[in-house]
């Protein structure tokens, strides 16, 4: 938020703190996603446990950001742009927290999958997760730079992830039809795929909020 300057330096700092905290949370979450997929692909038990354990910190940070925003609302009574920024921050914070939970979910599934032999090498799933991770990063970049174009790019990216999810679904379907013993594993992988797809939906939600914050127009459900 560096386009305009507030008369109160303190206020300015507080707003900046919210942005910084969101970015920090975003970075933690990016790492959580990358780690959860790595734990899945490399069948790394320890890494999966680490991601699950780390979620406490993510939840704590989420709570702190919400507190900060509410304090700002109560004490500064922001108007116009600042108000939009703070409400956006609250919603983005919510999205990020949900994504964090999803990383945990992926790890939990990965732990179950690790107990059985590997069904097939993962190719599309890491790609999908990488795109989703990129989407989170770019949506937050868009927030920092107030870049509507970038936000719109993120919103378009959601389609790619959806397609990959479909592809994984069809592929797993053939596995299940060939051999009923793979059904359990296939279903787990399918759930993971679905989770990644939901992560990208949340990233899209963040991008939507950025567009709203900059332009003041809601683009959700379009």
């Amino acid at each position, binding site marked *: 938020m*560096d386009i305009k300057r507030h008369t109160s330096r303190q206020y300015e700092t507080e707003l*900046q703190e919210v*942005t*910084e905290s969101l*970015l*920090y949370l*975003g*970075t*933690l979450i*990016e*790492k959580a996603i*990358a780690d959860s997929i790595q734990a899945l692909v490399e069948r790394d038990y320890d890494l999966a446990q680490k991601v699950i354990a780390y979620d406490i910190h993510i939840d704590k940070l989420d709570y702190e950001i919400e507190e900060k925003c509410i304090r700002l609302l109560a004490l500064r009574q922001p108007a116009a742009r600042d108000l939009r920024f703070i409400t956006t921050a609250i919603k983005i914070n919510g999205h990020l927290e949900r994504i964090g939970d999803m990383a945990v979910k992926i790890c939990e599934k990965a732990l179950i999958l690790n107990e059985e032999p590997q069904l097939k090498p993962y190719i599309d799933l890491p790609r999908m997760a990488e795109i989703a991770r990129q989407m989170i*990063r770019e949506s*937050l970049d868009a927030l*920092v*730079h107030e870049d509507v174009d970038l936000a719109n790019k993120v919103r378009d990216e959601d389609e790619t992830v959806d397609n990959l999810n479909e592809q994984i679904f069809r592929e797993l379907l053939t596995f299940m039809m060939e051999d009923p013993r793979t059904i359990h594993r296939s279903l787990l992988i399918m759930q993971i795929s679905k989770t990644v797809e939901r992560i990208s939906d949340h990233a899209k939600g963040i991008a939507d909020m950025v567009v709203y914050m900059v332009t003041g127009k809601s683009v959700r459900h379009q």
Partner: protein
Amino acid sequence: MKTRLFYKIFATYLIMVLLVMAVMEFFLTPKIRDTISSGITERMIGQGRIMALMTMDEMVKKIKELAAGSEARITIIDASGKVLADSQSKGQEMDSHLNRSEVQEARLRGQGTAIRYSRTLQQNMLYVAIVVREQDHIRGYVRLARSLEEVSLSIEHLYWSIYLTLFIITIPSLLLAFLFARNISTPVRRLMELAQKIRAGENPPPMMAESGDELGKLTQDINYIIEEQQLKIRLATEEKSKLEAAFDGMVEGVLTIDRDNRIDQFNRGLRKMVGKRRADILGKTPLEVFRSTDLQAAFLRFRETRETVWQEVALDGERPLILDVNISAIQGYHGDEGKIMMVFHDVTRLKQLERMRMDFVANVTHEIRTPLTAIIGYIETLQQGAVQDREQTDRFLQTAYNNAQRLNRLVDDLLTLSNIELGETKMQFREVIVAEVIGEVLKTMAPQAAAKKITLEENLPADVPLVWADRDRVFQIFLNILDNAIKFTPEGGAIKIAAASKNSEFVAVRISDTGVGIPKNDLHRLGERFYRVEKTRSRDSGGTGLGLSIVKHLMAAHGGQMEIESNLGQGTTVSLYFPTTHPPVEA
């Protein structure tokens, strides 16, 4: 344009001249008037005294002559005040003059003066009366009268000449004042314009010093200052651009952070590392730019303790980077207290090498232990009594032998590799026909290929130039490559070998298979010792994990190159480029 200085100097002169005139008018004029009137009075008294020496009758008789000689009206009065004669009217008709103040004064003191309005002549008159004595008896008085108009007239005459003189003096002095004022104000004005130009940042040429006085010296000094200043500016600019060039030319990324935690300066090295636009870095916080929790944590730690922090930070962008970051305060720089500097060293390559070294040691021990464990295991079994069973003994010994052989191969390969690396392998360079060597290799490998029903195709035109190489090493290179190709190609596949001259300097040999292929991520690591795409797959095939590594090093020793392209599941193409001329490195 005349400056204010000019007006000031000129006006000062003007005022001085006017002041002189005013002083004359108010101070000198009464003085002069007094002097002149007293002079006239004295003269009249003198004339009267001389007349008084005559007798009364003589005076009456010669009154006309006396009046003409003294330029005054003369009245002869007897002791009783009766007018005996007057030079301008009939004396007998005039009343007694005894009570006139000048006559009274003369009666008492011998002489008297008075200024009075004469009704007779109707103007202010100066009267002088002198007593006429004869043996201490007052016989009468002689009175001289003169018009004061005459006195004024003569004063006026005098004034006229004074004013004329003043006027004559004033004109040149004003002219002089004008010139003087202009002489001072013009150089001052030029200096002023010069100063204004300098202030506006222009680079004016030095001024000519026109005179040797203080102004001339001032001009010279200013010229000197300008020169000095320009020199300093030039030096500073040069110094600055040198520093900037050094700053920008540094491989390390450098940025500085202001008190608001925003990046206010950075170099090209940094921008290259981050791969962002200038506007996306400037004025942003480190977290916004790098998105690294490790860096942010280090940054916060530094802000708290103000102690220099070293931190390794992994950045995953298009090209993953491992950076060694040094965060410190900028010191000894006035006005920049509280500023923070971050220096980023790219240690990606270093870390890779480190990992390779660690992998190597781990791999060597692992590779050696595997066959050793087998050998020890079988020998132990034999010791525990299996040696009694002839059939089993043979089988166990054979396995132990195979593993010992594998160990031997491994040691051989390692030796070969280290010899090549150390440059101790003597290469026997001569002209080699590539097709011939390939033919021999194919003959050697034919049984293996046949066992897996792999077809070997060759396309070796006769016009391929000779290469400059060590024949035995070339043989080894092709053997290793073909061995790999056969190993990783499933049954019924095909391997193609084609040679062609790439350009005048190199002959290219391409060996393509229809094998399992290699994932893109692994391609760049293939030359590493013991690097296996899948940890299990090549050891099963009996390789030592050093084949490609040896090829890579041998190609380097030849001054050639190896390139590998691959599509997962479709096959791999290895391109070998041999130099046709003398290799640059004579190993």
